[in-house]
């Protein structure tokens, strides 16, 4: 297994963890909040709200802007 494959596998594991957490949160009686609920909590303050939107804006800037 090359280092390229190891790196890709790492990303896939992280993605699988995110999907699994969301499924556990929404499909079971677990007390883990869903991603939407977590974001609602984070964005319930102005700091969190602006922080999340700045992070979103940065994503677009990172991939496209000069």
């Amino acid at each position, binding site marked *: 297994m*090359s*280092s*390229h494959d190891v*790196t*890709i596998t*790492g*990303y896939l594991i*992280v993605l699988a*963890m*995110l999907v699994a*957490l969301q499924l556990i949160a929404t499909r079971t009686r677990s*007390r*883990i*909040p869903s*991603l*939407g*609920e*977590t*974001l*609602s*909590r*984070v*964005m*319930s303050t*102005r700091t969190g*709200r*602006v922080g*999340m*939107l*700045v992070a*979103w*804006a940065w*994503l*677009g*800037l*990172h*991939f*496209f*802007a*000069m």
Partner: protein
Amino acid sequence: MSVSSALCRCAAAISPALPAALAPPFRRPRRPRSAPAGRGPAIPGSGRRPGLARRPAARRRLALPLLLAGGLLYAAVAGSFSRYSWPVTVAVVGPGTLAVAIGWQGPPRPRPVRAGVAARRAAWWAVPLVTGGLWELTALAGQPSLTTDSPAHPTISTLTDPLLASHLGRSLFLASWLILGGWLIER
């Protein structure tokens, strides 16, 4: 006037349909039983008559398809520009600034956080997010330099380069980015 309020006013001027589309379902105000619709006394403080209050609902029904069409048009046009050029920079900075200005004003409607969403349970989400961030940093550190990609240690940016090389790929990415921003503003 502060910078933030100026930006918010600018946001409202640029996109009058957005607050309407994001507003809660309109509820017609209760009117006095004795007053017929449209002919009753003006709603105190509003300067309007009750019958005219239906218009915002119709306006909002129109606003959502208009926003979707505008978003698709934006993605198609902005995706036609090459990456890291001035036109696409303007196309990304515009919505980004608008979203932050709207977000500064607070949520579009009061959204109660589910009882029991404690910070320590929400912290479960930090595990994959921090792991992913560290993994990305590890790949970045494996590059020959910060600006030189490494096929052996690809970052997420490197992996998305082939996708963003085409007009369709850029448009799809920008449409998804816009949808994500709209979803975040709705939170």
